[in-house]
């Protein structure tokens, strides 16, 4: 019998409404309120415990609440964690998202919740947590629990996830490949020509890749170069010849920082590129074409900017996923901040 632990707020926990929203978290054995319906719908699994917490307590003491809940769960066996459904209740939705995310990160078990598209928790957490598209209020409880537990049963039985559209949860920007039946009508060639025919005829068709909207970061203000502490970062795979950090030549997950203190240029034979995505000859012959240390030093000596940071930071860009690139950048940041770097020349190949 698989074990499931659930989370509900004070209202669904049966303590009370707004007046009990400051309720501190606690855990009970077995079911409470809607988790009874969840338990009834589960196959070969049972709800062993239910966590209850007031929405306001969670909202204003999130870290404290989460840490206490993680403490409750530490010694419990659990195959799946379910929060909600939260419908359109904003604080409850955000709480479900927070708890699910924390449980997933700490215990690595699958987490599920359900809420309405208007619930701010949906947008905030749909990337991290599988959130089923729920109704606007508790009158939809039966329906929302049904959809959610149907998927929970599948997950617990190890059956394949058919994707967010078929299962009924929010799109997360998480794309994986699937194999279709091996027949001509499913080949990319056939699909492409049929899609073209529909496009020509003005008939509806479904593109297999919907282009997401662009997500931009706020533009950093200009810096007076007299105050500029500049660091060089590169995705060209330029490394010391022995590649001491074993950075991969494609699909990199590793990066390195190497001292350029007292160097006026990057010497061939001391540095080289390990990038597999382009012809390395030119970069190996003169690494400054990849990381322009010689030119940057020249400007530094002229006094065009304040000073150059003592290290350059390097990885390989080809095939490297966005998530890995972001993680690597975030790992570099403390080193940069520590030295007061405020501007970066990032070179890509």
């Amino acid at each position, binding site marked *: 019998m698989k074990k499931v632990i659930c989370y509900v707020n004070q209202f669904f926990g049966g303590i009370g409404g707004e007046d009990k929203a400051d309720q501190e978290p606690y855990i009970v054995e077995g079911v409470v309120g809607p988790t009874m319906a969840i338990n009834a719908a589960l196959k070969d699994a049972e709800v062993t415990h239910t966590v209850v917490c007031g929405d306001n307590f969670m909202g204003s003491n999130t870290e404290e609440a989460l840490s206490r809940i993680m403490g409750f769960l530490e010694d419990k066996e659990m195959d799946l964690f379910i929060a909600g459904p939260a419908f359109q209740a904003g604080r409850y939705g955000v709480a479900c998202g927070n708890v699910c995310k924390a449980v997933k990160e700490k215990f690595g078990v699958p987490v599920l919740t359900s809420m309405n598209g208007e619930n701010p928790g949906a947008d905030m957490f749909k990337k991290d947590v599988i959130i089923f598209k729920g109704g606007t209020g508790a009158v939809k409880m039966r329906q929302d629990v049904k959809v959610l537990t149907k998927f929970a049963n599948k997950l617990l039985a190890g059956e394949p996830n058919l994707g967010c559209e078929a299962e009924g949860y929010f799109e997360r920007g998480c794309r994986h490949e699937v194999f279709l039946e091996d027949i001509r009508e499913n080949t990319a060639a056939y699909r492409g020509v049929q899609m073209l025919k529909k496009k020509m005829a003005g008939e509806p068709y479904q593109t297999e890749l919907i282009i997401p909207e662009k997500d931009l970061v706020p533009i950093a203000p*200009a810096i007076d170069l007299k105050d500029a502490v*500049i660091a060089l970062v590169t995705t060209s795979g330029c490394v010391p010849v022995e590649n001491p950090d074993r950075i991969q030549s494609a699909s990199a997950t590793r990066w390195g920082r190497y001292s350029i203190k007292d160097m006026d240029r990057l010497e061939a034979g001391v540095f080289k590129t390990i990038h597999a995505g*382009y*012809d390395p000859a030119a970069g190996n012959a003169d690494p400054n*074409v990849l990381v*322009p240390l010689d*030119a940057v030093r020249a400007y530094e000596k002229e006094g065009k900017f304040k000073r150059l940071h003592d290290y350059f930071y390097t990885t390989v860009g080809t095939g490297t996923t966005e998530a890995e690139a972001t993680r690597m*950048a975030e790992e570099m940041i403390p080193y940069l901040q520590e030295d007061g770097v*405020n501007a*970066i020349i990032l070179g890509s190949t």
Partner: protein
Amino acid sequence: MVKALERAGFNVVHMCNLIPVSMTVGANRIVPTISIPYPLGDPNTPKEEQWKLRYHRVGVALDAIATDVTEQTVFKVRI
């Protein structure tokens, strides 16, 4: 990577050849380089030419750091 660094508050100038990629990944200050395998110095040209080009484009990048922009901007290079 560009976005993660800029989000952390650094002023980032992206030197790259594929401007459309840079625009797509969300760089705000962009300075073009001449190619993928040799961004800042064509090995088929004399060393002095390579140096001139590299010195110029790095200079443009430094000036970009000191320039306020209101949208994703590709800075013009002369050589």
